[in-house]
């Protein structure tokens, strides 16, 4: 595992490294930090701040009782593939007062993952709206919490009313393999959309 800076993998690298990025969006406290941490090879680029009284009424902490800190900057992760391609993961700030950062994060992103908490589905509506408006390919991943009721993906799709071609899947942001499947789904969706647009 490589810590710190990008290092070229051993062996010949005929082409310069290719830097790409994915966005991880979703409501406050939905597990974006956990998801990025499950698969990244670098420490997150973030500022954890204590939830203070200043945030009361601003940050809705209903049903996130266990969360005492929140990410005020952004989550940042990196995966270096043997081919030399580097994939960065950027978590979008969960609170609406940080929305000014979204356009820059979204610029040039391959795709996005909207992480949802089935106990608080409306929290991810604004992320879905944003990516629909921007025409950024995205998938919805419902993160499993120990006390969340079990729904299947079709129920979640109905509740969110997303387009039928948008993949909706269940995940556990703590498990690397599960996170990997979510990332694969998002890039595969972007590729499928690209191919169908090219055919038109």
């Amino acid at each position, binding site marked *: 595992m490589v810590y710190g*800076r990008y290092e070229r993998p051993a062996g010949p690298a005929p082409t310069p490294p290719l*830097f790409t990025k994915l966005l991880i969006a979703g409501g406050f406290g939905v597990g974006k930090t956990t998801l990025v941490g499950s*698969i990244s090879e670098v420490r997150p680029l973030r*500022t954890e701040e204590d939830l203070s009284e200043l945030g009361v009424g601003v940050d809705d902490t209903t049903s996130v009782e266990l969360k005492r800190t929140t990410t005020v900057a952004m989550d940042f992760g990196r995966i270096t*593939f043997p*081919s030399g391609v580097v994939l960065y993961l950027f978590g979008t700030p969960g609170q609406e007062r940080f929305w000014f950062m979204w356009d*820059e994060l979204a610029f040039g992103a391959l795709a996005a993952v909207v992480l949802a908490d089935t106990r608080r589905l409306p929290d991810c509506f604004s992320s879905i709206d944003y990516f629909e408006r921007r025409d950024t390919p995205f998938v919805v991943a419902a993160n499993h919490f120990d006390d969340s009721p079990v729904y299947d993906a079709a129920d979640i799709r109905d509740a969110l009313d997303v387009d039928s071609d948008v993949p909706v899947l269940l995940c556990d942001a703590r498990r690397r393999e599960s996170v*990997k499947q979510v990332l694969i789904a998002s890039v595969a969706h972007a*590729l499928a959309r690209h*191919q169908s647009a090219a055919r038109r």
Partner: protein
Amino acid sequence: MTGDEQWLDREAGPVVRPYAVTRGRTRPHGVTVGLIDLVVSAGRRSADARGLGPEHRRLLGLCCSPITLADLASEADLPLGVVRVLVGDLQERRLITVAASSGESSQNEKVLRSVLDGLRTL
């Protein structure tokens, strides 16, 4: 600001506030550097670095070989906004060069395939 900054107490926070190292500036001169744009030192002699603060020098040291802005901020352990301003200063003095790497390739089929292949073999 060093890694072991002093804290007066909980309310006061670190003695050196992040934007103190930028002298209060929150926006860089010139074009904003993207998160995955590559920053690299121009390899000039240290005489060109006169008048730079310790954070400028630290960033300069970290970009001897090409590094993305996000990695630079992560390694320097400074807030992204602060790093942007300082990188803007270094760029203005032509001590570093910046190569944009985001944007144009995002909807390229070859790029999408290579990322997908990479993820599948993780």
